[in-house]
């Protein structure tokens, strides 16, 4: 049953006027949903002042361990904490099974799509995706044409953003196939909850997420080039300590027990990418890069980049190193390509997509643009290449002035935008001074892909809009996080 709820639409024909969003703890407000029953029992017996103290304690722990992110455009010293809410987001085993199937299907399709468009381009020949979408897209890297990465894997690490609108309705919001971040919060949030509320875990069976770093290491190792040997050398490439996600880069390298390198630690030596150690240059087999394509190789891409490694693309094309994720994967999570995902899934898997796409208007098509301009105040408009919630318009929340300004931008460069209806995102309670209060959430599960396996960690990152009624969950714009539980069978 497909039922998209359009929040904020005011009585237009054919559109439901629905104001109360689906709450994952209380459903439509009538009765407690199953996955939350054990939690609710525990919560009822808790003293709120103790919980408040615990909430503060959690923030102190985060500050001390340095789980902070840097805010772009502010003084370099500023490191902010992502607020953490102690009420977990709980998903039942059955719900998770269905989600997992959908995610796996989608990730396999993404990889098949990437291989196809950088090789034979069957999907274009079949007329399912217009050639224009690729040709005029900055995320499409001609340097990748005819290159097959070791093991045939393009997107080694994927973080698919999901939203929920009802008991049984999940939508994919974004595919994040380049360098999804946030997995360190998934791990630290769980660690914090385990330390603060051990009793809660002994009365509820929650599937563990703690194996992620080990799985990541194994998965990356399994994608090493031929001839890398039993124990491939893996390294994490970071832009450096001023990057907003530096904490995560260091965290993952530490947890995997591999080196954290920057561009200036690396050099091409004898046809291999090698890192400068205290004992000379040591070759790397697999590079988990957290640097964008454009900065990866000043010889092949942006010549001003100091973050990358001159010549790494040549080594890569010769099969001397695995780069995860592969250069050019951005084309698969591009917002314009996103609108073709139902066709893409069907084309490569021969099945209907299990997870739904949010209906999307491509503003480069005149009919769509007209519709979008006519209904601007009811839509969410996003930049095709934007991320992090920047450069986005949320129609129902925008002022007249903001709408007028955005209209101009849209008319000037329609191809730069897509539009979607405002979904009524589900809510999960957060803990406030006045007790529990519903707030909108999304979910980013983390997926690891190796030649033989798609591994989905049971859980993920739940982002929550802490402001009442707000739909923006991005950490850079006032969102917080929650621990995400997937219950055992």
């Amino acid at each position, binding site marked *: 049953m497909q039922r998209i709820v359009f929040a904020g639409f005011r009585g237009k024909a054919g559109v439901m006027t629905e104001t109360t969003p689906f709450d994952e703890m209380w459903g439509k407000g009538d009765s407690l949903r199953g996955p939350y029953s054990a939690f609710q029992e525990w919560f009822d017996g808790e003293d709120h002042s103790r919980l408040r103290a615990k909430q503060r304690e959690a923030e102190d722990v985060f*500050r*001390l*361990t*340095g789980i902070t992110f840097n805010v772009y455009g502010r003084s370099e010293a500023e490191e902010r904490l992502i607020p953490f809410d102690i009420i977990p987001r709980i998903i039942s085993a059955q719900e998770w099974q269905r989600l997992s199937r959908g995610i796996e299907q989608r990730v396999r399709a993404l990889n098949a799509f990437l291989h196809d468009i950088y090789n034979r381009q069957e999907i274009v020949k079949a007329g399912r995706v217009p050639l224009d979408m690729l040709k005029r897209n900055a995320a499409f890297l001609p340097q990748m044409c005819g290159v097959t990465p070791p093991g045939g894997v393009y997107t080694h690490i994927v973080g698919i953003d999901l939203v929920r609108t009802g008991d049984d309705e999940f939508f994919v919001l974004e595919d994040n196939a380049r360098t999804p971040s946030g997995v360190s919060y998934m791990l630290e949030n769980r660690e914090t909850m385990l330390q603060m509320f051990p009793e809660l875990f002994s009365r509820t069976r929650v599937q563990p997420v703690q194996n992620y770093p080990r799985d990541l290491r194994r998965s990356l190792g399994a994608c090493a080039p031929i001839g890398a040997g039993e124990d491939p050398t893996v390294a994490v490439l970071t832009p450096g*300590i001023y990057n907003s996600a*530096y904490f995560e880069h*260091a*965290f993952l*390298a*530490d947890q995997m027990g591999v*080196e*954290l*390198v*920057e561009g*200036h*630690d690396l050099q091409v030596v004898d046809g291999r990418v090698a*890192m*400068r*150690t*205290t*004992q*000379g240059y040591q070759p790397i087999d697999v590079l988990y890069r957290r640097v964008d394509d454009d900065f990866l190789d000043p010889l092949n891409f942006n010549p001003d980049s100091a973050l990358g490694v001159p010549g790494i693309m040549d080594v890569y094309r010769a099969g001397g190193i695995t780069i995860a994720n592969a250069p050019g994967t951005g084309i698969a999570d591009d917002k314009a390509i996103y609108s073709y995902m139902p066709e893409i899934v069907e084309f490569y898997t021969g099945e209907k997509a299990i997870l739904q796409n949010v209906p999307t208007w491509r503003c480069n098509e005149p009919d769509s643009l007209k519709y979008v301009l006519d209904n601007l105040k009811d839509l969410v408009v996003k930049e095709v290449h934007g991320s992090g919630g920047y450069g986005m318009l949320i129609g129902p929340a925008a002022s007249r002035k903001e709408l007028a300004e955005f209209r101009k931008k849209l008319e000037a460069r329609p191809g730069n935008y897509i539009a979607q209806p405002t979904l009524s995102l589900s809510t999960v309670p957060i803990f406030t001074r006045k007790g529990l209060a519903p707030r909108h959430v999304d979910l980013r599960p983390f997926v690891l892909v190796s030649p033989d396996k798609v591994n989905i960690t049971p859980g993920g990152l739940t982002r929550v809009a802490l402001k009442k009624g707000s739909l923006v969950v991005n950490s850079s714009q006032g969102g917080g996080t929650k621990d995400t539980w997937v219950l055992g069978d």
Partner: protein
Amino acid sequence: MLGKTANGLYWLSRSLERAENTARLADAGQRIALTRLSGADDEWGSILQAAGGWDGYMAGHGEVTRDDAIDWMLRSPDNPSSVLSSIKSARQNARMVRTALTEEMWEAMNGCYMAVRDALARKVGERDLPECLQLIRSRTALVRGATHGTMLRNDIYDFLRIGTFLERADSTARILDVKYYILLPAAAAVGSDLDNVQWESILESVSARGGYRMVHGSRVRPQEIVQFLILDKRMPRSLNFCCSKIHENLRYLVNDYGQQTESADMAERLASSVRAQEVDDIFDYGLHEYIQSFLGSIADVGRQVEVDYRFYE
């Protein structure tokens, strides 16, 4: 280990040591100022010189006052050796080499940074100075404790130790050099109360009063101060002690990596020359000249470590 990581570890411990030394000098300066009868601020001049950055201070201030000197040493962002600048740099380096540190050490370092940053957010008044210095001492001691208590004894630890002792040797030598003239044998003949205070101030600046008393009793004499701060092999801030530690840790690296290095050879030569030194020979050679030549040698060792272990390229 990455060359960059070795570099970060080395500067992490150097900066931390520098923060401690600067705080200790501020403490010594304050004590001396309080125990002197004349109200002059000239003691702060030599304290500033010993702490480094004298030129920087004079460029910004023109005259030496107690308040400005303390603020310069504790908080000034223009002073790269101020406690705050040093702690920031230590923490910055710790972030850079986060994967090489134990969780306990990182948390101690990060906690040290947060506490010191908050304590030094505003000018520190005279009344709050002792408490503030105490906080710096105990926070840096916690980092050192976590380092000793939790870090593996491997190359990571060696680079930390090398940074610590290079900085410390440099600091002790500079403190001696600023006051070398009051330690000359001719000065001993004067033997006035004022000079006693001066001599004690030197011991105070390196937290050596108690140690000195244990070894040399309660009489403070310049020859013995020089003996204690340069040649004593038990005094953890003496040049002899620091050099033998630098050599020791470089030798561990040589054994660990199976690679002989120029820096280890240089450290060995320096350590054995300090070890074999007699205090009279130092005076014959000239105390100031001796210290200047030592400062040159220790800087050479530092530079060679950077080259041998590929800190930069």
